């Protein structure tokens, strides 16, 4: 049904009239507009103070990011702090600490040389490390070395290997480093906790450890310091791993599992803690490796075969030697035992004594 013509006309006239009246009424209002009054209605300023607040990284309560589930603030001010800590302190000083440690060890070796056994070997052996002890030690040691090398590659590799080997090789090298580091890290963590628990009883601090430290561990000169199964130095390494080592693992897990929604700020601090402590432990590990291999005659035998010579035990761990000396066995006896365990068609390999 259509609207009849007179009605439509009336509509149009009345609409036009209303429009004209409206315009007539509003005209004076525009003409009389008062800037001061208008300013009263104007929105207050988002001023330089607010921008300063934004730049400082502060997040106002009434702040909205259109990206869902985002925890970012508009300006991540702590990112710059993290960058400066990492690039200006951790990176260069890490190199200084590692290089300094290597230099000190080299200097020590050239001045004092290897710590030889003072008495001749007796040829009688004492069991020092069980198969389980040694498996744990070498697993942890291998993982430590892999993690240290891959970690160092993540921190310093781009300065050395990228220009040296070219982008294509460097790409696989660095992504391999990251994968090894991220997947082996938690395995190292679990094994470290097991080995720490297993070796705890040997590493409880004793009164004679203090004397051991005062005598410098007997590393220099002829004097011997009292030591039980573990000497003062070994106990320091143990407790460094039990404190700094566990912190490295904890901070590493924070970085390794971003799926738990930890914030960017948490990961920045975890990264600094992780890098500082891991670099420190790597430097101390240089010392541990030196003393255990090149630095002291007879030490590596214990971790390699499980057995140490009586003379070594007497000179380095006299209190432990007193406890276990009646369990000493002749090395020929041990060798025949070893041969019996292996069937004749698979003869035991010759062991250097």
């Amino acid at each position, binding site marked *: 049904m259509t609207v009849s013509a007179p009605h439509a006309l009336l509509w149009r006239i009345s609409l036009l009239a209303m429009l004209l009246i409206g315009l007539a009424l509003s005209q004076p209002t525009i003409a009389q507009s008062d800037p001061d009054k*208008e300013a009263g209605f104007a929105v207050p300023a988002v001023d*330089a103070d607010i*921008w300063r607040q934004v730049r400082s990284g502060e997040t106002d309560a009434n702040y909205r990011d259109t990206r869902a589930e985002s925890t970012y603030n508009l300006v991540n001010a702590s990112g710059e702090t993290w960058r400066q800590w990492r690039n200006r302190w951790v990176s260069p000083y890490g190199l200084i600490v590692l290089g300094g440690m290597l230099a000190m060890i080299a200097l020590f070796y050239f001045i004092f040389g290897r710590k030889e056994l003072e008495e001749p070997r007796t040829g009688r052996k004492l069991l020092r490390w069980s198969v389980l002890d040694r498996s744990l030690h070498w697993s942890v040691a291998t993982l430590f070395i892999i993690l240290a090398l891959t970690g160092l590659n993540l921190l310093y590799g781009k300065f050395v290997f990228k220009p040296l080997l070219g*982008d294509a090789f460097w790409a696989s090298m660095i992504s391999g480093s990251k994968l090894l580091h991220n997947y082996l890290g938690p395995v190292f963590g679990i094994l470290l906790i097991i080995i720490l628990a297993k070796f705890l009883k040997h590493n409880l601090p004793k009164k004679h450890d203090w004397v051991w430290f005062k005598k410098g561990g007997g590393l220099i000169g002829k004097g011997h310091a009292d030591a039980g199964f573990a000497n003062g130095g070994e106990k320091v390494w143990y407790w460094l791993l039990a404190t700094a080592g566990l912190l490295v693992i904890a901070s590493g897990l924070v970085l390794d599992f971003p799926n738990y929604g930890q914030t960017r700020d948490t990961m920045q601090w975890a990264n600094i803690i992780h890098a500082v402590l891991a670099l420190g432990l790597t430097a101390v590990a240089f010392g541990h490796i030196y003393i255990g291999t090149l630095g002291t005659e007879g030490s590596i035998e214990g971790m390699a075969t499980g057995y140490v010579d009586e003379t070594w035990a007497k000179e380095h761990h006299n209190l432990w030697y007193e406890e276990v000396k009646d369990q000493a066995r002749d090395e020929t006896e041990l060798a025949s035992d070893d041969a019996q365990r292996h069937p004749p068609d698979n003869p035991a390999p010759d062991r250097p004594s």
Partner: protein
Amino acid sequence: MAQMKFMCDAERCIECNGCVTACKNANEVEWGVQRRRVVTLNDGESDEVSISVACMHCDDAPCMAVCPTDCFYKTDDGIVLHDKDLCIGCGYCLYACPFGAPQFPKENAFGERGKMDKCTFCAGGPADSKEEEYEKYGANRIAEGKLPLCAEMCSTKALLAGDAQTVADIFRQRVVQRGHKDGGWSGNSRADADNLAYDAAQEG
């Protein structure tokens, strides 16, 4: 050589998210990654203000400084680009970036983040073919003589992109005229405040 910069005039941004959509569309950005975002301060209050943020292509880019693989590089136009073949997804660029520009498609256990993605100023990235470049980094509008689509499509021209000097000139002209005493916004109290978006030299 030009020094490419973005600049968002917060006095003009109306939080329409057109830039976000334009970017997403021009670059076929993968799911979960948003190279550009609009942030609103004091949302719902009378002094609400919005600003569009993406990679700012810093002169002294923190991402470049902390990247363990050294995958970032700066073009002659001052655009910060990265090589996805070198990226290992460690997340360090995300820790360092002031603007939350670097993003990752995943956030899984064992630091599995996938390859980092960020705004390329619509300048693509290193690849062997055009198809591969588009697949990895999105559009290379700069190579076609065009500016980033986000700024090109901004309805209020709040988001400016281009040579730093040109962008600065446009903004300076806006500032001078914005608070003019015969202008539409004359007497606006915001102009009296310590506000960089208004000409400090104007009277009253």
